[in-house]
């Protein structure tokens, strides 16, 4: 057995098995997130939501998936064929790729790398390419407008997200995701850094193109934004990618602010529950807030969106970063 785990082939097989053990539940989670979103929105709007396919409509996601697979893939004339088909794949691939470094429990990450948080930030900053390439390759004005909006929006909100992450890193003293969670053993960062938590959460809404920042797909003016021209599986990949990104951003929020796999209080009934369960529960909480926000707030106007990003979040997060650094330095709490 030892020989197997030390042989390169053994390590390869083990990594593939680990990746599958993470990705299969993730994809099922994505499928049921679409169901949960429709059910929660329905409950908030006094409707029933999907309730026909299977008990309580539980098989609805699979019915949708089969329908998507059966449809014809249409590539518009004048579209750049290669890039048109590459864009949804890129979006989906990036949404999956980021999960390699997420620690589900202490030591349960496929790759526990030193610069984990930078890796996540890098992958999430690439997400904009799927959108912008799709918009350009479609050769359609609505798609292109949606892509331009999305590019501007995602680049703007990344800046304040970066400052929030730096603030958390100041309190941790490491770029490793496992270390970030371990540093929250005594108190979750959501308590001392509450304003940064709020900024981070709102920025993740903008990063994932969710309401109230869903201008890239604003259906009342751009039909469906950057993916107007997509149909069938290429559309499904965008759809899955968007929801997988939501789960990813919730996981990131959980790791940075909500103590990852740690129980709320380290006493008897709470620390009996295994870490991954806490992790999933916290992700579910964040996802519920995502949906709740969608049901509550109207879409932002474009100039308001830019104003919020550059004139409110950026100066505030920068000021809070300086404040945090000063407090840590003066009290001597700065981690070595």
């Amino acid at each position, binding site marked *: 057995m030892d020989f197997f785990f030390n042989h390169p082939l053994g390590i390869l097989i083990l990594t593939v098995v680990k990746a599958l053990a993470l990705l299969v539940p993730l994809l099922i989670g994505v499928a049921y997130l679409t169901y949960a979103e429709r059910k929660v929105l329905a409950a908030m709007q006094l409707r029933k939501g999907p309730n026909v396919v299977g008990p309580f409509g539980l098989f609805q996601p699979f019915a949708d998936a089969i329908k998507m697979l059966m449809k014809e893939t249409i590539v518009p004339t004048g579209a750049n064929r290669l*890039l048109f088909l590459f864009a949804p794949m890129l979006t989906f691939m990036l949404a999956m790729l980021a999960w390699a470094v997420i620690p589900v429990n202490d030591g349960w990450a496929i790759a526990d790398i*030193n*610069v984990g948080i*930078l890796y996540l930030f890098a992958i999430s*900053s690439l997400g*904009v390419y799927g959108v*912008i390439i799709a918009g*350009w390759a479609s050769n359609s004005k609505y798609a292109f407008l949606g892509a331009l909006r999305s590019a501007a929006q995602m680049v703007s909100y990344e800046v304040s997200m970066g400052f929030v992450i730096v603030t958390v890193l100041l309190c941790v003293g490491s*770029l490793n995701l496992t270390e970030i969670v371990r540093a929250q053993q005594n108190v979750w960062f959501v308590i001392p850094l509450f304003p940064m938590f709020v900024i981070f959460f709102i920025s993740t809404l903008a990063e994932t193109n969710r309401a109230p920042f869903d201008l890239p797909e604003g259906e009342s003016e751009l039909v469906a934004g950057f993916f107007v021209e997509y149909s069938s599986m290429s559309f499904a990949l965008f759809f899955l990618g968007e929801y997988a990104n939501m789960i990813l951003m919730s996981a990131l929020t959980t790791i940075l602010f909500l103590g990852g796999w740690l129980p709320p209080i380290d006493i008897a009934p709470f620390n009996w529950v295994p870490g991954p369960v806490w992790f999933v529960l916290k992700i579910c909480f964040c996802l519920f807030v995502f949906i709740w926000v969608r049901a509550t707030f109207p879409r932002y106007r474009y100039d308001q969106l830019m104003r919020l990003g550059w004139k409110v979040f950026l100066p505030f997060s920068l000021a809070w970063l300086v404040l945090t650094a000063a407090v840590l330095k003066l009290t001597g709490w700065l981690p070595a």
Partner: protein
Amino acid sequence: MIAALAFYAFAAILIASAVMVVTARNPVHAVLFLILAFFNAAGLFLIAGAEFLAMILVIVYVGAVAVLFLFVVMMLDIDFAQLREGFQRYAPFGAVIGGILLIELFMAVTVWRFAPEAATLRLNPNPEGVTNAEALGRILYTDYIYLFQAAGLILLVAMIGAIVLTLRDRPGTRRQDIAAQVSRSGSVSVRRVPLGAGLKEIGIERPPSPEETAPKPIEHHHGGHH
């Protein structure tokens, strides 16, 4: 062995995509090849053990700079015939610059030598027990802090210059003044009214319509509710 294979794969794709950046006919394809080149450079950094630099390369160049490149290139309506027009005229000039760069490159390979301190550093880029980020931080923020700050100031000046040059306050544009909206009172209020009663019956008069108050010019406040 695997590292060597990965190195040659990254290096080969890097050079091939760099060639494609220069030769691609479609400028959008050129930018996409540039992005591929950045990725492979990041891969080379990873093999060299510079994980921090690899990630920063992806975040800064691929995640931000190349997005803006792509953004601009996609919006340009490039006429290739027009671009070709000046080729004859500019070719000698371009050849001279290319020649100078080639000579410099040649000299860098043959004549230029590492300082002895740098040569020892190159053998051991990561000191024992220190992560990439910390090693870089020590050099940038401890050894060369003044130079680093000076570089930052130069960038700041460049940024302010760019803003000053492009920011024009054009007359006639409408802007939202949030402070004015929030501070105004009187015209907007919430009242509880009995169901089914008309506004007139319960004594609430609507604000006068603009036509009645004319000819006084109307001040525009965007986004206000009436």
